[in-house]
């Protein structure tokens, strides 16, 4: 089952240009694990602001590629970070990590 909304992805390709979509996918696939790592570290350090900012970027990037479920999970984490409720995020962070796997695979296949 697809985790990438193709209409959103096609629109993205139109904006960036065919030639550039690979570069954009690579950038996201490179940055996403870093953002997840940042969230984990921020959670350990109890740094709500860093956590929120990383979740915010994840939300934004996932939405850009049409990864709706991943974006929604990131948004929930962003809200918890904003409300300084990091204790409630651990389970959701694991869910986000799991949700990234199929997004990663599908985007890699979408590279032209």
């Amino acid at each position, binding site marked *: 089952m697809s985790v990438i909304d193709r209409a959103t992805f096609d629109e993205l390709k139109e*904006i*960036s240009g065919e030639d550039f979509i690979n570069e954009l996918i690579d950038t996201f696939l490179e940055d996403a694990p870093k953002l997840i790592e940042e969230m984990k570290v921020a959670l350990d350090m109890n740094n709500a602001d860093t956590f929120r900012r990383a979740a915010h*970027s994840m*939300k934004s990037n996932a939405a*850009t590629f049409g990864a709706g479920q991943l974006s929604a999970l990131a948004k929930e984490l962003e809200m918890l970070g904003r409300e300084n409720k990091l204790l409630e995020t651990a389970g959701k962070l694991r869910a986000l990590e799991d949700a990234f796997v199929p997004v990663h695979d599908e985007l890699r296949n979408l590279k032209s």
Partner: protein
Amino acid sequence: MKSSHAPGQMLVVDDNRVNRLLLTRALQQHGHRVSNAENGRIAMEMLRSERFDVLLLDIDMPEMNGFEVLEALLVDSNLRDIPVVMTSASDELDRVVKCIEMGADDYLVKPLNPILLRARVNASLEKKRLRDEQRKLFHTFATPEVAEQLLREGFTLGGKFVTASVMFADIRSFTSISENQNPADTIEMLNEYFALMFDAITSHHGTVNQMEGDGFMAIFGAPVQLENHHRHAVHAALEMIELLKVFNEQRAVRKKSELQVGIGIATGSVIAGFTGTEHRATYTCVGDAVNVAARIENHTKVSGRPILIDQSTSEGLSEDVKIEILGPVMFKGKKQPVQIFAVSK
């Protein structure tokens, strides 16, 4: 090609690398030149050292966020004109509203819609082009300070009543001077002369708003309000005469004929405003003081005194200015005689 589609110099500010890259490439696809910065602080450094037409600005950034950038732009007269398009997530529109209130021009929601991106960027470029034109227009007829004030406060083509001092200045026997030298010398002489005279006027907060042949008109107290505008006008006239003395000494060395000038100043209520169209406008003053100033200037030919002023201008001048009553003079078109005063240092 439509002017609104002309390429521009863009600055993309976003801490998110994907957003930064996407916006950069998207704008490059439209033919624009694009630079980018990963936070507000770096963006401000770039804005101060390079020229940009449109700024695409994220809100949430480390070091210096979008709000802080907007604040910094607003207080910088060199950067205030750059249109700012906020780029934000769809769930933070309340913050976009705050940005618009702080001076941002427009916004784009991420993920980007290609049609909206093109439309908003082109509209901002057009806005920048108009602001540049307006700035250029203001600078051609006003001092930099006046131009900045007009840009800050805006202007409308409609007029208003203002109390101001109006100056007319003209070169005496210009025709015979120009007949006795070659045309290139005449133009060079006029350019040197105007440069000196305009310098005296702008340094006393006046605005030259009309030129015709060898004569010109200047206003003190409009378009921007000025206290003691009549004093400034008189001091400008005295400085003009002094500068002309130096100018003539230099001409005498080069065996060129000397220039004599007549200056008339009148103070009173005038109707001032921009006339013309949006593409070509001038700042105009009409009213009794304008007519009287023109007549008084003409009267310098008869009186043989270089600076003549009316009663209102003569009141409350500083003590180092010598005023001499020349008496009432009847002018064409005026029912009452006008009291004329000669001014010197």
